[in-house]
């Protein structure tokens, strides 16, 4: 690989980073859109909506900080394979928890509030709530499936960390 090609890759990487940062702004805007609807319909729910918006915006900061502060493999050449691999697994596990706390949880709150809004509308206009039931069932299934899959992934990562601990013990 020539040096010119590497410099081109550096430029591509910068462009990709900019795109990712812009992409990560999309979710809060979607969330704000949802809330806008709810706030207009039900002023009583405004504090809940405002809290969820603030949560997802703060989450955006923490998630991005977590992602960008990660050392790239090229910065870790003084670490051995064992150290680096363990750090990567731990970082992945931590990232998953951060996503749950700062991204998934505000989305859950949004959905919950949205369902509450629909239920309130349903009281006024009886046709809406039953019609929205299939959608809500799908949402609940999606949330449950997401949790089950991610928890299994977490357990697998933990198992790998345990294996690496065993290897380290055998190393001594």
């Amino acid at each position, binding site marked *: *690989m020539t*040096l010119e*090609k*590497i410099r081109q*890759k*550096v430029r591509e*990487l910068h462009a990709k980073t900019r795109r990712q940062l812009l992409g990560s702004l999309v979710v809060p805007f979607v969330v704000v859109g949802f809330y806008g609807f709810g706030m207009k319909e039900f002023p009583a729910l405004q504090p809940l909506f405002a809290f969820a918006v603030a949560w997802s915006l703060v989450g955006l900061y923490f998630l991005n900080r977590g992602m960008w502060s990660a050392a*790239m*493999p*090229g*910065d*870790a*050449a*003084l*670490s*051995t*394979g*064992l*150290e*680096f*691999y363990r750090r*990567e*697994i731990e970082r*992945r596990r931590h990232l998953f928890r951060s996503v749950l706390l700062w991204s998934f949880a505000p989305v859950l709150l949004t959905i919950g509030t949205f369902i509450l809004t629909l239920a309130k509308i349903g009281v006024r206009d009886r046709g809406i709530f039953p019609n929205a039931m299939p959608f809500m069932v799908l949402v609940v299934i999606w949330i449950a499936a997401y949790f089950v*899959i991610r928890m*299994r*992934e977490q357990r*697998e990562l933990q198992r*790998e960390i345990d*294996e*690496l601990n065993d*290897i380290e013990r*055998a*190393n*001594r």
Partner: protein
Amino acid sequence: MGGTESISTGAARQDDLYRDAADNYSSAIARLASAYEADPEKRRDLSQDIHFQLWRSFQRYDARCSLRTWVYRVAHHVAASHVLRERKIFSNLVSLEELEMLPDKDQGQFAADQRSNLERLSVLIQQLKPLDRQVIISYLEDMDAVSIGEITGLSPGNVAMRIHRIKNILARRFHQGGGNE
């Protein structure tokens, strides 16, 4: 002025070190990438990523370890990150212990396809978790247990034990495969 000069000297040194590494280890990096990634397109990307990270890493190279150890560490780190990023939700990678218990599912297919032993070896290596892959790939690059230990962080005894086990698995599988062909 002095600051600018030292930056440009540093950049030139970084480029020189990279050129040196690329001249000597490009083919080893290509072999390493193929041991980590089966898909040709992704393999090319992985190989480019290794070169890129290698070039970046030379900003910090202080000759505390040999150039070879440095190159292999960076290459394995990039590849291990790649494996973690690419792996499916339910990973199908196995430890040495699990691999020893697994039957060789591809046996019949290998016999039918008449695929080469080298390809078979690649498939086996790609089933392993990154740390074991590092050991066997380094071993196949003719490194001794001490050098492999420097790269992986395993003790030479642990490296030797792992190599022995991997060789046993390979021998058993190749023997079984040979019987069917």
